Each structure stands twice: as C-alpha cells, then as structure tokens.
C-alpha cells in the first residue's frame, strides 16, 4: 500500500452523511454513509441496481440529494451541477468515454477549458506544457498529437483521466474503469491509480469485479438495495465474503468438472473466412468443432474477428469461404431463420444492439428469435399473444427476471434482468447449439452466477455451447476446451483445467505468441 492507513485520523477528503435519494416509488439511496480518507483508493461495490450510480451522480452534482450532507475536506458543499463539483475538486471519469474522435489527445484534454493568450487565441504551447507536466507527474503515458480515433481503449481512458486532472480535480471518481480493459491494461491502470494516490489524489472507484477490488482498494464500501451494508478493509475479507455481502445471501459453489461431451458433433466449422463491412478479411480460415454436451470457449480480446465469425455462423454475414455444418448437415446456404429454427440459440454480445426490442413488451422480446414456433405462434403464422404471455411468465419465474410482469417494456428492466431475459428466452426453447457471446458482460455477481449455473446445467443435458468471451474467469470456469482467437485465427488451444488466467490473458493479447516466436528464433 502506498500510504499508511493512519492518515484516516485526519479530516477525511470526502464524507457523505445519510444521503437519501428517492425517485418516485423507489428509494435509490437510503441513508448512505461514506467516508473517504485523503489519498486512499476507496472502492464502492454492489450489484446492478444497488444504488452506486445514483450515489455517484449525487456526489458529482448530476442529481441533488433529497436528504443528507456532502462534506469535502471539512466544508459542507451543495452541488447544483458537475461544474460545482469540479470547482470543489471532484471529477468523474465515465465508463463510456466522452472524447471527440477527430481531435488530437491534447485538443481533447483542453476542450472547454482552453488556456487563452492574446486576443482569445488558444495558447497551445502553454496547454502542451501543462498537460505534459500532468502526464509526467502521474505517469499517465499518452501521445499528445495523436488523433483520438487511433487510440486503444486503455489510452483513451488515460486521456479521460488527464482531462479530469487538468481541470483541477483532487478527488477522482472512476466508474467501472476496468470493464473495458484487457488484463494487462488493467494492471497499468492500477499502477497509474497507485501513482496518483502517492501524489495525494484521492480515488473513488466503482467496480463489481471482486478480485480487482481486493487488489487495488484501500477501503471497500459495499452497497446493497440502496443501503451501505459494510465498510471493510481488503485484508479482512475473502472474495467470497465480499460477494456474499453484495448479494446478501450465499453463493452457489461451482461443481466439480466432469466431461459430459458426447460423440455427436453439433457444430463443425471448416476453414471459414469472413470479411468485415470494410471488406477486410477478419476471420482467416477458422476450423473448429463443438460436440453435444460440451462448452467450447473462444477466448479473445474484442476486435479479433469474433463478431464477424459469430455472424457468419448465424447466417447474417456471408462467408468468403469455408463451410458450417450443424449436426452434420451443411447449412451454408441456410437463411438465418432456417438456422434459428433448426435449434441455434444466440446470446448476442451487445444485448441492446442485437438482442432486444427495447420499447416492446417483455413477451414480444421473449418470442424474438422464436416467433415462428409454438407457443408463440400457431402454424408459424398466427401469433398467440396469450400463450406467449404465459410462456414469458414461466420464463420470468424460471430465470428470476425481476419485473412487474410480461407487459412491461424491455427498457424498464435493469441490465442484469434484460440479460436474464435473453438467456431465458433461448434456454426455454431448448436449443441444440447455443452461441453465447459475452453472456455475463456488465451484469453483477449474483446474476453472473445464475447464468453460469444455467449454462452448466444445459451442458449436462447435452447442449453444445460456443462461448465467446473475454472474461478469464468465465472462460476458465465454464469451458471444456479453450480456443484463443487472435487476429482472425485460432492461435492456441488450451486446457482450462491447467491454464492460469495470466497465461490465458497473455495468449489473448498475443504476448504469448511473441514470446514463443522469440524463443524459436
């Protein structure tokens, strides 16, 4: 730890006292207390919907609190806008970056807070000097003249952080900063965070990945259902304790792994190549097999051809070459509908983009992808809304989708519940093959455990699953076999029983390949 815990005795950098925030009918924050010591990394964890975002919105001035006090370094403050919060030294780094792609890093950083010289012209020399000082001081490595569109995710995040520092923030709020990063980028971010704290910055860090929280945080506050349930030190708790604090009940233990793979090959892909929208070959001759009762994990950092590969399997994208076989039948010429009706279930990587009809009621979402089948329609033509609602109710119960009923629009649900709905709608139709792309992305530990459990059970009953993911725990914990996709090719086949997360991460980022190549040379 870069600073000693003894500093807690001094005036806290920030304290929230009895913050209550009501939305009509909902108590989003119920007398939440939070004390953040000067120079510490304070993690806030909780399930989706536990009130983390509301609390942060109150803290940086987006929402006024109904009750309670915010005290910054001993002075009570009242924020009416994020500008007020920034003036008090509180800055927010959002989960989704807010950068102008066509401007350079430097321009983005000073945008809206440009130092002006004579006649109102932007003093770029001064700006460059100040930004360079900041980036040196905090070890935040960025290329000031690079257009943002050329940057990777990790560097974009550093730009966002510098933006906030440049505006004078001394207390940084990072909203799920690791959700967009690959493992080695996470390490770098953590290094940066420690450096910043060593220089006196205070960081409030929202996350629900337990191992990360335990690794980086000095103090952890757990929220559940709008209340503070505990404030703990990372060395006092195990990941399991923390998860149970967040969920409020005991978690299921993963069962011992025994193979349930059968002889029959459900999905066979032969030498498949696919072009992306810009006609670049992003999938280059992939061959693989998924047997019944087997989960094959396709591990890879986003943008290595997974999206196009999955689209080709579904028939959305026409392959350049190669064949796809389902249960031995060549399905290359089949339409998406024929494939779906032949029993291919699909969990899309982005539930809003490919998965849901957001303004439509849940029962219409539940039938999406199965609209030609009973009980959603008769003879593949006449919709049967009554039976569809009934089936949706079963789904809601079986997959613990928290909703007032099947007539609520999908956008009313939280992300985790939307995901449960999507998984439920596929599983309830008992597919032969499930293509699951990032099935637990952005959902909390409780929902995540439920999804894993569902996939596990379905596998035992003979379901073939192609699991496309970047989540190391998920890949290792769930897969029977692991394939790494890197730059459109299968770069490695690994055994999940023996591989470590670190090795898998290295393979995914191509680091392992380079090391091996160097050794061979």
């Amino acid at each position, binding site marked *: 730890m870069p600073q000693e815990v003894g500093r807690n005795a001094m005036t806290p950098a920030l304290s929230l006292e009895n913050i209550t925030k009501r*939305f*009509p*009918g*909902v*108590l989003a924050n119920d007398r939440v207390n939070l004390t953040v010591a000067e120079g510490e990394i304070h993690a806030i964890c909780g399930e989706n*919907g536990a009130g983390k975002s509301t609390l942060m919105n109150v803290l940086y001035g987006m929402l006024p609190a109904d009750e309670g006090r915010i005290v910054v370094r001993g002075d009570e403050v009242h924020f009416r806008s994020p500008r007020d919060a920034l003036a008090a030294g509180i800055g927010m780094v959002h989960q989704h970056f807010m950068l102008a792609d066509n401007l350079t890093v430097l321009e983005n950083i000073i945008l809206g807070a440009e130092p002006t010289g004579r006649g109102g012209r932007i003093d770029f020399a001064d700006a460059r000097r100040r930004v360079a000082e900041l980036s040196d001081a905090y070890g935040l490595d960025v290329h000031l003249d690079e257009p943002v569109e050329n940057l990777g995710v990790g560097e974009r995040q550093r730009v966002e952080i510098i933006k906030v520092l440049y505006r004078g923030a001394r207390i940084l709020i990072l909203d799920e900063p690791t959700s967009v990063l690959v493992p080695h980028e996470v390490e770098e971010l953590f290094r940066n965070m420690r450096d910043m704290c060593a220089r006196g910055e205070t960081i409030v860090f929202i996350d629900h990945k337990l191992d990360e929280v335990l690794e980086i945080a000095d103090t952890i506050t757990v929220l*559940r*259902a709008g209340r503070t349930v505990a404030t703990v030190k990372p060395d006092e708790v195990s990941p399991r304790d923390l998860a149970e604090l967040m969920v*409020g009940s005991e978690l299921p233990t993963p069962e011992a792994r025994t193979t349930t793979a059968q002889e029959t090959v459900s999905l066979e892909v032969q030498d498949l190549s696919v072009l992306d929208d810009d006609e670049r070959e992003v999938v280059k001759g992939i061959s693989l097999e998924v047997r019944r009762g087997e989960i094959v994990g396709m591990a890879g950092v986003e943008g290595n051809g997974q999206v196009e590969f999955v689209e080709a399997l*579904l028939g*959305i994208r026409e392959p350049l070459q190669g064949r796809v076989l389902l249960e031995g039948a060549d399905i290359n010429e089949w*339409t*998406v*509908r*024929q*494939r*779906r*009706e032949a029993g291919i279930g*699909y969990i*899309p990587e982005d539930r809003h*983009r*490919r*998965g*849901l*009809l*957001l*303004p*439509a009621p849940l029962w*219409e979402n539940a*039938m*999406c*992808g*199965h*609209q*030609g089948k009973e009980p959603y*329609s008769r003879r593949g*033509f*006449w*919709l049967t*809304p*009554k039976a569809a609602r009934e089936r949706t*109710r*079963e789904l*809601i*119960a079986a997959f*613990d*989708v*928290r*909703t*007032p*009923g*099947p*007539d*609520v*629009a999908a*956008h*009313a*649900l*939280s992300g985790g*519940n939307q995901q449960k709905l999507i998984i439920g709608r596929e599983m309830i139709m008992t597919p032969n093959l499930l293509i699951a792309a990032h099935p637990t992305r952005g959902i909390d530990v409780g929902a995540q455990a439920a999804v894993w459990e569902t996939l596990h059970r379905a596998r035992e009953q003979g379901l073939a699953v192609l699991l496309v993911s970047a989540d190391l725990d998920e890949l290792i914990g769930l897969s029977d076999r692991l394939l790494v996709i890197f730059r459109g090719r299968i770069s490695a086949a690994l055994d999940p029983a023996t591989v470590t997360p670190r090795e898998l991460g290295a393979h995914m980022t191509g680091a392992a390949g380079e090391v091996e190549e160097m050794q061979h040379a």
Partner: protein
Amino acid sequence: MNARSSHRLPAHRRLTLALAAPVAALILSLAVASIALVLSGSNPFPAYGRMFSYGFELETLVDMVNRATPLYLSAVAVAIGFRMNLFNIGVEGQYILASIIAAQVAAELSLPAPLHLTVIILVGMATGSVWALIAGVLKVTRGIHEVISTIMLNAISISLVVAMLFRQWDVPDESLNQETAEIPPSGRMPDLNGFVELFTREIGKGRVLWGFVIVAIIIGILYWIYVARTRPGYDLRASGINPLAAEASGVSPKRTIIVAMALSGAVGGLVGLPEVLGRDYAYGLQFTQNLGFAGIAVALLGQNHPGGIAIGALVFGFLDSAAPILDVHGDAPQEIVEIMKGIIIFAAVITYVVVQRRRQDEEARAASLAMASSDSEPPPETTSNTPESDTRPAT
C-alpha cells in the same frame, strides 16, 4: 405480492396516457387557431360554434366520412411503411397511377357487378403495389433511400397520368375536362344511404355516403390483424424497432422491405378509388390530389395505430367538411382550418413524445419496485408462477 398489484396499474394508466396526447393536441390547436383568428380580426367563438353546429348535421357528417375514407386508406398505406421505418412518401404517385389504370380497366370490362368491382379494386392494388415495389427493389439492390426514389416516382407518375389522359384518350372535343371513359353501372360502388337511413332521417342535399367506407374498414381490420396477430407483422414491427435484433432473430431485412413496400403500395392503390367508384365513375381532372401527403400527417397523428388513424382521419375529414361554413357566414377565412391541421400535427408529435417519456418513466419505476420488493424476500418465491388471466390485446 406488491409486484403483482403494481403490474395492474399501468393498464388503465396506459389508456389515460394514450388519450392524453390527442386531447391535449386538440385543445392546443384550438387555442393557437383562436389566437390566429383574433389576430386576423375575427371572434373565434361564434366561428367555432357555427363550425360545430353545422359540422354535426347529418349531411356534413356524411361528407366528413367520405373525406375521411381516402385519408384513412392513405394513412394506413403510410403506416405500414412507418412500422418498419420505411418512409413511403410515394403514396401520392401510387394512388394517382392506380386510380387512372383501375378506372380505365373498369370502363373496358363488362362483368357481373360484384366480380367487376372486385377486379377493379384488385387492379388498383396491384398497380399501387408494383409502383411502390420499384422503390423497394431499388432500396434492396442498390441501396437507394426510399424517400428519394418515391418522390421521384411521384413526379414520374403524375407525368404518366397526364400523358395517358391526353394521348391515349384522344377525344376530339375542345373541353379541358379530359377523362377516362365512363365506368358501367356494374363497376360502380353502391352507396350506403339506404343503410344509414335505417337509423336516421333521409340524407338530403343530394349527399351520398360512399360504399368504399366498408373497404376502408376492412383494410383497417386486416392491417390490425396483420401487424398485431401474424408473424410477418411481428417481423415488420421488430425490424422497425431494432433491425439488427430482428435480423438476428431470423428476419431477412431485404425481404421485409420488399413485403412492406408491396403492402404499402397495395393499400396506397386504393386511395383514389372511393372517388372514382363512388362519385365520378371515371378518372378526370376533378380528381383530388395530395391525399398521399395528407396520409402522412394522418398516420403521424394516429401513431400508426389502426384506431388512432381512424380518429385522425375523421378529425381531418370533419375540419375539411366543416370549413366552408366559415366563409359562407364571413366569420373567418376557411383557411384557418389548415392552420388548425398543422397545429394538431405539431402538438400531437410533441405531446406523444412527452407522454411516451412519462410512460417509460412509470414503467421503469414499476420495474425497479419489483426489484426492490423482491430483494427483501428470497428470490424463488417472489416470482411465483401463478397464472393470471391477462388478455389485453397487443398494441
């Protein structure tokens, strides 16, 4: 349990919210039109009073329904496209072309009455459909936006109609009133006066209630069944809401575009027929234009819902049929009605957005309540599988 009772609330709440928008739009438009009237030196209240007392006379009501019928068909044609985010601006061209071709075919055929009428209607639908399909095919194969192509097709079809009127039916007489040959009685749509007079007094002033109202009602019902009760209708709506999700669910985007354009054009081909088959018995220069554009406004007002469109078409029909009285009595210029139409659409669009946001908020609140209430209990019991008799129709 809390969760279940909160589930009931949105049902009637939803109805209130659904009605709030058009009512607010109407009130707002009356208010704005009043300001316009005052500014132009008229007193709005006697003007409205006369509009309403005249407007609810039986003859005016018949006129209102007659005017609403083509508007309704036109709006349904537009709405079919809107349902999947296709902007069929070409109903105008589709119905003009369909009307002249149907009128010509009708005049040349001689068939027994019901068959004759059926053939004419089918010819109109087929013509509209083919004309709209040109835009659909261009979009699917060449990626040409349907707004551009349908606008251009409108211009082409109007030119075609003019060419057909003056060349093919080269009548030697000097009159400017060129028209197709007269449709024989077997091809005319019988009127509904006899039926209406069963319930009311005799319809005077030579007014006739067009039989095509029945066709419009049937089309409205078929549209509702198609959209709310069939799988292709679901595919259409799903594509409109989220084309990518629809595609992943097995809906072919290209096929859906073709189907939507064909259906939209088929209904569009009917728009001119009430006049041709119920009043003029020919296609000529007195033929009403711009119904295709008016249909866009009515579809917007009715939010693409068959019932909403009917209300919208009747409101517009009422304003059109009640407007002339303003001039007769010198209360106000009858063009004030056009201002009112504009304001109604404007206000409707705004209030719909406001109402929709309200509805989303309330639903989100209900959903988080369900989450909150089930948090305090162990998960399995909270979502108990008690069957409910919920037979609310799809929207």
